[in-house]
């Protein structure tokens, strides 16, 4: 089973839910934890993994041989992303726009395009709390995080319970992390801002046909509009985490609720039962 923890808004508590859920159910299931928030992975702060292996994730960038190139423009026409331009006699390759698909090389009639690997980031793998842990880490200055997320999804072991900590937002990286999950847990807070971004996240999950559940974090602040929205949309609020000093303090110390407060272990196990049904 694959459970993705996502949110529209950042800072709602995705990592709190993902890490606590993973620890809570790791006694019962063989858990695989994937921190796919590759621009700013932080689950390791709570899970404190032992990293055993680091490998590079690359994309292939085109390199045009200006001598061989006839400026026919076939590559420019073929590129969906406008990553190659011919301006007069000059050939411009936009590395940040390139998705590394290799189509330009395929369509070049004179074989003037070669590809060279370019590192986007790394994937670190290891163990935490007795389960398997991996996190993606985008290199500083890189614009494209989805190839790293796709690479991480390729590591999914179908025999395990995979918990994916998704990046915030509703763009391509988030879609990559939610797509193909059996269920998405959307973490929000009961504020107008939380509601606005929750609605966007629900739209994303539904567009890729992934069933959604909501966890309300910092319950007690704001208003009841998130709950009313969930009722209207027939979305189960599977857990509420109160806005409490004790919880905030544990968070600030990098300690999980499950490790510090035994009743939360049961609550996160109940969350699993609710979403896995």
């Amino acid at each position, binding site marked *: 089973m694959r459970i993705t923890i996502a949110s529209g808004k950042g800072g709602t508590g995705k990592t709190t839910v993902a890490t606590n859920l993973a620890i809570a159910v790791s006694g019962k299931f063989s858990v695989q934890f994937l921190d796919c928030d590759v621009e700013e992975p932080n689950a390791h702060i709570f899970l404190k993994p032992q990293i055993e292996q680091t490998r590079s994730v690359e994309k292939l960038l085109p390199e045009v041989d200006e001598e061989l190139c006839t400026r026919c423009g076939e590559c*420019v026409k073929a590129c*969906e*992303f*406008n*990553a190659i*331009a*011919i*301006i*007069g006699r*000059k050939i*411009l390759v*936009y590395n*940040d*726009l390139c998705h590394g698909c290799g189509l330009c090389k395929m369509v070049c009639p004179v074989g003037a395009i070669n590809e060279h690997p370019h590192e986007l980031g790394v994937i670190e793998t290891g163990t935490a709390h007795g389960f398997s842990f991996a996190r993606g880490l985008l290199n500083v200055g890189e*614009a*494209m*995080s*989805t190839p790293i997320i796709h690479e991480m999804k390729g590591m999914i072991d179908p025999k395990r319970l995979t918990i994916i900590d998704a990046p915030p937002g509703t*763009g*391509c*990286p988030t879609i990559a992390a939610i797509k193909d999950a059996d269920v998405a847990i959307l973490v929000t807070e009961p504020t107008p801002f939380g509601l606005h971004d929750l609605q966007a996240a629900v739209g994303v999950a539904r567009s890729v046909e992934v069933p959604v559940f909501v966890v309300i974090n910092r319950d007690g602040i704001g208003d009841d509009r998130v709950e009313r929205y969930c009722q209207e949309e027939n979305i189960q609020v599977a857990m509420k985490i109160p806005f409490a000093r004790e919880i905030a303090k544990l968070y600030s110390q990098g300690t999980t609720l499950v490790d510090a407060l035994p009743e939360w272990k049961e609550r996160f196990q109940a969350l699993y039962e609710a979403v896995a049904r």
Partner: protein
Amino acid sequence: MKVCITARGEGFTAEVDPTFGRAAYFLFIDTDTRALEAVANVPGAHGAGVQAAQTVVEKGATVVITGSVGPNAYQGLAAAGIEMYTGATGTVEQALANFQTGKLTRSGGATGARHGGGRGIQ
């Protein structure tokens, strides 16, 4: 001289479109004859700035007058030696007059916030 002014509409009275790559129209104007050709801009989801720069080059303009130019478009226009004048506002007519009286600043680098990071939309 042929200049390209980004606009929200098709004529001299149209407002200048402040963005380059995702402008509604490119108006190609011969500054001697005032002959005007409006080209609707149909940017793809990705790399609009690159695409727009190529359009301007193909049309043979040597000057671009707009609000701001993103980094990808800047690189493309600069490669063709096209001069970019940014900060244009008001109508196309006013922007052209401001350009001709030297009131617009010539841009030596990308001035715009990148749409989607100037990296298309992933």
